[in-house]
């Protein structure tokens, strides 16, 4: 479904990714693991058009995403929950969700879509008139996922949803991610927390200093000596 083929990505003159390739098949959860600064977020940012690869290609169901304007990528059915949630802090929770329904098709269907999201995250209904910046970390992450899901994407990119959250909240969020995936949404999940990511992912990739170093199905990666040592702390 989502295919990244040999991309080189630069920040100015500094190269951040070297020939990174990755595939996510339809209805799969694929996790991209790696340490700080390994290039995980850069990969996601390239997929959603915020960075343009100098070489290589990114395509979604055959459509070249790297040739589309960044604001038009969501129209292809790809939604991105950015690192650090990046909510509109001075807007209400409801307005954040409505911003997620900006595309013409989603706007027509916004009430049902928002309703669907508050059913998954009931806390957002309680908080709907509260400014997003005043939510707790876990609630903000839920709001960010809900905002991305309002447009009813086919593919969801999740950038470190577990960041800074208590384990019990992380578990809740990952349950929801699984549920979303169960409804037919393909998920590309970036994580530092390899342990929990490999529990829900079908397959995984490991990226280090801008290069892919490993890939495999989750059960294999969980048994891999290198992954165990470097990412699972065993």
């Amino acid at each position, binding site marked *: 479904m989502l295919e990244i083929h040999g991309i080189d990505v630069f920040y100015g003159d500094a190269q951040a990714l070297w020939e990174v390739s990755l595939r996510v098949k339809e209805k799969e959860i694929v996790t991209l693991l790696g340490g700080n600064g390994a290039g995980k977020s850069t990969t996601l940012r390239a997929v959603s058009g915020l960075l343009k690869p100098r070489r290589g290609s990114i395509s979604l169901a055959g459509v070249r995403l790297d040739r589309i304007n960044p*604001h038009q990528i969501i*129209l292809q059915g790809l939604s991105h929950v950015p690192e650090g949630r990046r909510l*509109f802090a001075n807007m209400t929770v409801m307005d954040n969700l*409505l911003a997620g329904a*900006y*595309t013409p098709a989603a706007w027509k269907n916004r009430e049902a879509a928002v309703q669907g999201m508050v059913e998954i995250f009931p806390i957002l209904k309680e908080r709907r008139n509260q400014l997003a910046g005043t939510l707790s970390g876990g609630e903000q992450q839920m709001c960010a996922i809900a905002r991305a899901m309002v*447009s009813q994407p086919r593919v969801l990119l999740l950038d470190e949803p577990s960041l800074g959250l208590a384990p019990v909240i992380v578990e809740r969020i990952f349950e929801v991610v699984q549920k979303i995936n169960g409804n037919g949404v393909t998920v590309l999940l970036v994580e530092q927390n390899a342990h929990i990511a490999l529990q829900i992912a079908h397959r995984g990739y490991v990226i280090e200093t801008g290069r892919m170093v490993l890939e495999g199905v989750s059960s294999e990666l969980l048994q891999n000596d290198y992954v165990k040592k470097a990412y699972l702390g065993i």
Partner: protein
Amino acid sequence: MTLKLIAEQLINGLVLGSMYAIVASGLTLIWGTMKMLNFAHGELYMLGGYVLYFTLMVFGMHPFWAVFLAMLVVFFVGVLIERALIHPLLDKPGWDVSPLVVTLGISIFLQNFALKVWGERFKNVPYFIEGTMEAAGFRIAYQRILILVVAAGVMFGFWMYVKKSRFGIALRATAQDRESATILGINSHRIYMLTFGISSALAALAATMLAPLFLINPWMGIPPQLKAFIVVVLGGLGSFEGAILGGFLLGTIESLAIVFLSSEWKDVVSFVVLILILIIRPSGFFGTKEW
């Protein structure tokens, strides 16, 4: 100095203040979304005045359509300025200074353009509605009542639009986090372009409403521009509510200054207010709040 005089001046202050609020809200709108100051705002106001002169006096249009056309023309001038001169500077180094220089240049150009093309003779337009209302011993020109009503209507309408509409949500989203807005499908360049247009149209509206009270000339935009800056600092840069409150406050303070001091002192008083605000509360009333 009677109570009646004070009351009349208070009403005049509200009338003037409502227009300060309209001019300032355009300025604050651009700051809030694009984080730039528009030094050509006063000249867009001036253009609004001239377009009104032509639509009203030369083509003899009904005031409603004359005002509407003035807003429309200046909207497109604003859009054109954004596309041609501001847009190329976006995302380039020096964004904190470059729009200042460019808009200052546009301002000087437009003033001299008006002087060259339309001449230095001041132009006069009549009141849209003749006559005065007399109630409870007060005499208020209908034009002033019209100004208040239009200002209140436009501000309320615009506020609701920004709070509730799809465009308004996109505008606020872009102002707060452009990248997040982009991944949700919002074209920030289009938002910027329209923001500039709307801001310009608001300036034109204020000019058309005030044109019968003041005179149309190439330099008519300078005082409202200065006042709008004071208002925006007073209310907090980027805050719509602040611009409205600040506008009314400054208008009222100036009008009372005329009663208690003299009309020559009103600008002194407004700048004293500006300096006091900068000392006491530099971020303005709503300075920390964004769109």
